[in-house]
């Protein structure tokens, strides 16, 4: 077994697992804050939920970047070809 391939697979798993922690915590915090805001001011629910969706998308991008890095390591690794 080639060590480069082994290292790539392990690093891909690490990239996804650790890359998912931060966005998960951040999305939990933002949803909690939005729930709090909607409970206090239900008439602003439309604006809050739209901003929440956009913000969630921004946060989620970091996790998606990690996923793309993992995919690059697994499927398009320049060192292995």
């Amino acid at each position, binding site marked *: 077994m080639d060590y480069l391939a082994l290292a790539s697979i392990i690093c891909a798993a690490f990239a996804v697992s650790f890359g998912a922690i931060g966005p998960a915590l951040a999305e939990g915090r933002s949803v909690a804050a939005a729930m709090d805001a909607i409970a206090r*001011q239900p008439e602003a629910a439309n*604006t809050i939920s*739209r901003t929440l969706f956009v913000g969630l*998308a921004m946060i989620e991008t970091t996790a998606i*970047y990690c*996923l793309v890095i993992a995919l690059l390591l697994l*499927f*398009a690794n320049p060192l292995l070809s």
Partner: protein
Amino acid sequence: MNSPLETIPLFYIGPVAITQAIVTTWVIMGVLVLAAYGFTRRLGLVPGKRQAAFELLVETLDLQIRETSGADPSRYRSFIGTLFLFILIANWTSLMPGIDPPTAQLETDAALAVVVFASVIWFGIGSDGVGGYLKSFAMPNPVMIPLNMLASVTRVFSMFVRLFGNVMSGVFIVGIVASLAGLIVPIPLMALDLLIGLVQAYIFAVLAMVFITSTVKDGTTSPEEPETTSPPKMKED
């Protein structure tokens, strides 16, 4: 397992490779254009059932555009609405067996992002002129010029990576689960895929609207309308 990063051409027209994503994209575009033509041919003042349903769709789009941009939606309706409907239908084509959604390929998403990038320039120049558009890079002050130029590229890049990552990972996971566990098991994941497809289409359209609006607002010479919001209620609870 096929890599999600590369595409397999179906056939060649001259030197141009035609992939499955291209065929699906053209079918979706054809269906959208034909549907739009067919449904708007006989518009009545008193809407029938079908016309009422489509008016509901258009009014929902208008409402979202107005709430996001605070401007008259008629300028942006065709662009944002088409973007939303195309991405939505493209995401949902994963339900048809044998068809991968074209948005799960890097090329389609990159093309959509390039369209958004060009539309920001188009709408910015269209409403503020070339000078106003260039001035929008110097907002809030000229120190931000390099950062703003960088941001105008990276935000579009992150848009296309986001759409690609979400849609592709959904298709990928359904494929893995179907190959491991069998036919019925991935159905809940496919239901989740439907939701993700809708949310991603919505987010793509809203983000495009937000980028256009911020450029247009920054380019105007005087901020004459400072965000008409309701006065903050000081509630002690």
